[in-house]
């Protein structure tokens, strides 16, 4: 199992931000992005996730995929806390443009203005976009 690998003592911890820009269904990006984040948790890095554009919809409560014939994977975002991934940033402009508020989201997030989020991105060692 990859999560059984011994990490070198005192290994370098980098800041990784996974940027989610796509709606949850219709493409594989959202689900694949989430899986990569869960796997990355095993490597004990400083991981955060940002939700921008239609990526905000990934966190929307009450997703129902019956008609799509796809698995509703949105409950998995609530498992992130157990993986010690607690830094979830949502861009305010994207959220508001879609008529959403924090109350519409499945998990606790930090809402940031575009400029604040850009500054956060600039601090990262690695940015991976889905």
């Amino acid at each position, binding site marked *: *199992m990859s999560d059984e690998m011994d990490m070198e003592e005192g290994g370098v911890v980098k800041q990784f931000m996974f940027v989610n820009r796509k709606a949850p269904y219709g493409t594989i990006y959202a689900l694949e992005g989430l899986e990569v984040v*869960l796997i990355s948790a095993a490597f004990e890095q400083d991981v955060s996730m940002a939700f921008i554009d239609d990526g905000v919809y990934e966190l929307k409560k009450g997703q129902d995929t019956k008609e799509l014939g796809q698995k509703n994977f949105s409950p*998995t975002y609530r498992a992130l806390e157990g993986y010690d991934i607690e830094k979830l940033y949502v861009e305010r402009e994207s959220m508001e443009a879609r008529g959403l508020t924090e109350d519409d989201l499945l998990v606790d997030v930090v809402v940031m203005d575009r400029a604040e989020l850009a500054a956060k991105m600039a601090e990262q060692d690695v940015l991976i976009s889905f």
Partner: protein
Amino acid sequence: MPMVEVAGKEFEVDEEGYLVNLADWDENIAGYLAQEEKVEMTENHWEVVNFLREYYSEYQIAPAIRVLTKAIAKKLGPDKGNNKYLYELFPYGPAKQACKIAGLPKPTGCI
């Protein structure tokens, strides 16, 4: 994919022996999967298997071992939420073996 018959019911497993349809799962099938893994099921084994099924129904994923250990410690106490206890029950990897017996997919990130 291969079909297996247990107690008069047919079900599908993948090439690694994981149950394909979560909804097919019952205790007979768990018994069969345990036998395939050479695990003799006791009350303590069932406790972990049932815990995993609850975890899956809540979060729709099979947890990584580290996450499983922590979640079990929280619910059943530190005597059970540790690697030693879980590896004694499932020597070839608690996440892998217990997930298989619970009818769940292979844990994400588990190779």
